[in-house]
């Protein structure tokens, strides 16, 4: 009789279509008023021997049914989960929610790269105003009044103020003057910033950026200038054996003066940097002219040093293959997206400078 009950209950367990149905089966079999429970209650009316035998059989049945219920419960839960997951399916090829990431302008990035390198050589960053007077922009830098070199600067002038001829700085060199007037040697600074010249064509814009370097102490000589710029150019352009050529040149504020070329290869409209035999001019430099030191209140018989200046856009164009100077200032989103840098790319010598 118990066998028949067992078969019946097992088939009910297996037939339960979902968890509530299964629970109903459990209650019917094992609940307070369940059928197995009912048989259990009848045990009291049996003789001890019968009771023992019958009790064991009922317990075995109870365990078996309980186990079947548990197994079925797991199956149903799995089926339920499976159905739920199927219902929750989405098209993962849909595009993600819009997020925008801006870009850092190549001029800022290039300046940050330069600062990272010069910082390693012990330079700190100095700044000065864009609106200058002719003392800081020319006179203190040993440009004699009427000298043709002043002409070559295509200066933008502003109305005179307090008998001073006002202008937009034509180079970052006035920051040298301001730094020397306000600090005692030793001095080791770089000064990045905006500069202005009245010229607008394929290769000139009325505003552009320069970075200026200045080292003043008692012993720095032209060999140090060379060492500093060789290290800088190789690190900046990421070419370990980049050759540099120093050519004598003329700037009113340095003596001796040099222009610096880096090695390159021009082929089929492309430019490659390295030891290829051709040369490309990238910066001007020299030993600070004694007249400049004196004009800035520094004893030229005791102190000496070097200065250099280079165009930020120019080296950015070279390094990153940007073809047209004028595009730097057009704020064209497509250009910024392409030539700009992601904000977390903070130039740093430890991580490497070039992306």
């Amino acid at each position: 009789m118990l066998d028949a009950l067992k078969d019946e209950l097992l088939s009910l367990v297996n037939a339960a279509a979902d968890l509530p149905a299964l629970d109903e089966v459990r209650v019917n079999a094992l609940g307070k008023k369940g059928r197995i429970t009912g048989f259990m209650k009848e045990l009291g009316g049996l003789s001890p021997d019968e009771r023992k035998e019958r009790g064991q059989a009922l317990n075995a049945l109870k365990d078996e049914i309980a186990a079947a219920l548990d197994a079925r419960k797991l199956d149903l839960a799995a089926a339920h989960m499976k159905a739920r997951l199927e219902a929750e399916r989405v098209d993962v090829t849909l595009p993600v929610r819009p997020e925008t990431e801006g870009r850092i302008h190549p001029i800022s990035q290039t300046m940050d790269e330069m600062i990272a390198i010069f910082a390693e050589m012990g330079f700190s960053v100095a700044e000065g105003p864009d609106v200058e007077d002719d003392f800081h922009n020319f006179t203190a830098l040993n440009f004699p009044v009427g000298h043709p070199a002043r002409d070559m600067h295509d200066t933008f002038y502003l109305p005179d103020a307090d008998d001073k001829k006002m202008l937009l700085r034509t180079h970052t060199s006035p920051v040298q003057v301001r730094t020397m007037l306000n600090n005692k040697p030793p001095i080791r600074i770089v000064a990045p910033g905006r500069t202005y010249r009245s010229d607008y064509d394929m290769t000139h814009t009325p505003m552009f950026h320069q970075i200026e370097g200045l080292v003043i102490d008692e012993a720095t000589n032209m060999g140090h200038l060379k060492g500093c710029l060789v290290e800088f150019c190789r690190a900046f352009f990421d070419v370990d054996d980049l050759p540099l050529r120093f050519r004598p040149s003329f700037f009113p504020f340095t003596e001796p003066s040099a222009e610096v070329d880096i090695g390159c290869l021009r082929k089929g409209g492309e430019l490659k940097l390295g030891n290829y035999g051709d040369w490309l001019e990238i910066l001007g430099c020299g030993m600070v002219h004694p007249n400049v030191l004196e004009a800035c209140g520094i004893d030229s018989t005791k102190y000496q040093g070097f200065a250099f200046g280079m165009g930020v856009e120019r080296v950015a164009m070279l390094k990153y293959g940007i073809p047209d100077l004028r595009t730097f200032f057009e704020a064209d989103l497509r250009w910024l997206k392409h030539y700009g840098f992601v904000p977390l790319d903070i130039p740093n010598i430890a991580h490497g400078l070039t992306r």
Partner: protein
Amino acid sequence: MKFTLSWLKDHLDTEATLDQITDKLTALGLEVEGVQDRSKELAPFRVAHVVSAEKHPDADKLRVLVVDTGTEKLQVVCGAPNARAGLKGVFAAEGAYIPGSDITLKKGVIRGVESNGMMCSKRELKLSDEHDGIIELPEDAPVGASFADYAGLNDPVIDINLTPDRADCAGVRGIARDLAAAGLGRLKPLTEGRLNATPVAGSFPSPLGVTIEALDGCPMYVGRTIRGVKNGPSPQWMQDKLLAIGLRPISALVDITNYITFDVARPLHAFDADKVQGGIVVRMAREGESLKALNGKEYTLDPSMVVIADHARAEALGGIIGGEESGCTETTTTLFLEAAIFDTVRVAQAGRRLGVESDARYRLERGVDPAAVVEGVERATRLILEICGGEASDLVIAGAEPAWKRALTLRPGRVKSLGGVDLPHDRQVRILTDLGFTIEGEEDDGSLRVGVPSWRADVHGEADLVEEVLRVNGFDAIPATPLPRDTVLTRPALTLKQRRVAAARRALAARGLSEAVTWSFLASATAALFGASHEGLRLVNPISSDLDVMRPSVLPNLIQAAGRNADRGYPDVRLFEVGAAFRTPAPDGQDSVAAGIRAGAAVPRHWSEKTRPVDVFDAKADALAALEAAGAPTANLQVTTDAPGWYHPGRSGVLRLGPTVMARFGEIHPSILDTLGVKGPLAGFEVMLDTIPLPKKKTGTAKPMVQLSAFQPIERDFAFLVGQGVEADKILRAAKGADKALIKDATVFDVYQGAGVGEGQKSVAVSVTYQPTTATLTDEAIEAIGQKIVAAVIKATGGSLRG
């Protein structure tokens, strides 16, 4: 400055190759900009003789030539109308590259007749544009010879970029002197042939005298009359030289003055003496005086300019250009030759003011050799007498040679201590003397007294002498020495302020704005919309009227950039710029500003998101993010609604700390967008980075201790009915102030106006977070805090709790 190799060799006795010479020039600081070597390009072309010319059997206009190339006789098919037997011309064999037509010749068959090469036209050799026929050479042209050699086209032209200090190298001789000093040959003396500067004895006194009335402008004037000359074409060698450097030969007298100008940087002028009235007077120009110059233009002069006049009028602009009236012509028989020294500054200023570029100005504004004025006149006299005949008068010398002699001290170790190169004493002395410096003496410590030559006005001090030695020895020889470091690790390069600017920049880019760099100037009409510019910031000489004042704000350029991007089909713009806004021309009159704009859709159309246009809160969020990154105490800032007029008055605000404005933000005023022609909506912000207070000096790097509560925070919501004008900020401040120890945060989650809310009222729903720190809050405590919050808000706003 251009010259040819053979011209250089007039002055320099050298075996050096062209490449050696150009490399050395650049190494000396005479940067070679270009070398035009026609002999290479013309190497395949030979002088050839047309032995016979027969009509082509199948073409009327073609001829079949037999050409004698000097080594063989070749059959050539030719279409030139002047191709005929007996002609001497220029032949190119197969394989030759033809520069004028950019092709390489191949053996060909033309209408069935084999053709082995080509007889060339001038255009094919790039000699001129002429292409009417093949080149015809004189009968005595040697068959088989190199055409370039025969035609004198084998002289490479070297173009150097002369720095303004090297006046001496505005003449070939100065360049030769530098090369000789650098070991590339020997400088020839000025004694023979066309270099001969030996004085010519005058055979009569000059009928024209010279008076200098403006000694400041012209300290020395040397002149001479030469009579009985016959002006005609100059000799071929002189024409070749002038043509090679791009000067048109005019007549012997003019060509000789040009030749000397380029040869020794000694500009000369030749007046037709018969057209000079009375005598030569060097004086300042009179107000309104005019001069018809040799270039055909008429110039109005002013009293800052030096003129060479006669007793009637100005005949030349001193040091710049001669006048047409008194210039030499083919019929000139008596001339007055001039060589003078002019004040360099006056020459430069007059030349610039009148816009005259001339070979004379180029040299005289740099400064000519004060000791070689007479020498220049003597050389020119010799050439004139030789080429044009005639006889020379005595010299007329007015004024005097300006003092130029000076000696400088060069300490023995200075080349090493300044230049970084250890050069032996003898080598230093040799370099200086080869350049024309003289050693006037040596002091006990080894210091040299160095005399500066008359042609080196650019050398003033010891540093210049060091440069001369270094330059001639070669900058390549300077060892690259690492900069010494005081410490192994370097200190930070940026100040805190600079770091904050950098942080604001990267924070804005991380928020999705792209960094632009726009002009620091803009149109004054646009500036006027943004607070206008200080009068001292208006450019005197703007490059265009669109860029005539310094920008009072960074916004207008960005707004216009947004318009340009929209015009290109990209209307959703997010841009920022970190740069200066200009208040006054003083050094502290420019402010470091981070400004940005958002235009178009703040959220683009997307399958899962609702699109919306940008608004004031986008700009406010950007401003707060930039301030936060730059270290501003954003939690303590107040918001006021007094943004300047370029913002929408009802949708803008100012973030301030007491009276200090740290940022402005808002939607841009629609009428300003209309004026600028830019479509809205457009929201922008300006963060004044300089106004952010610097932190008090820290005593260490530690942050304050954090207290993390073990008890859960509780959120409670309240809805208040307040007047429409009540600012949300007021409600939040009141709520937070109700129990500062317990209330951690309060924020607005709904604002409602309309049905169910009275006229002129709004409902503001606020969520307040309590953070207990010592024990779980009891229901009673929670209730008590709620009552305190309600009371505080009602007191602050006059509103009520919404039922």
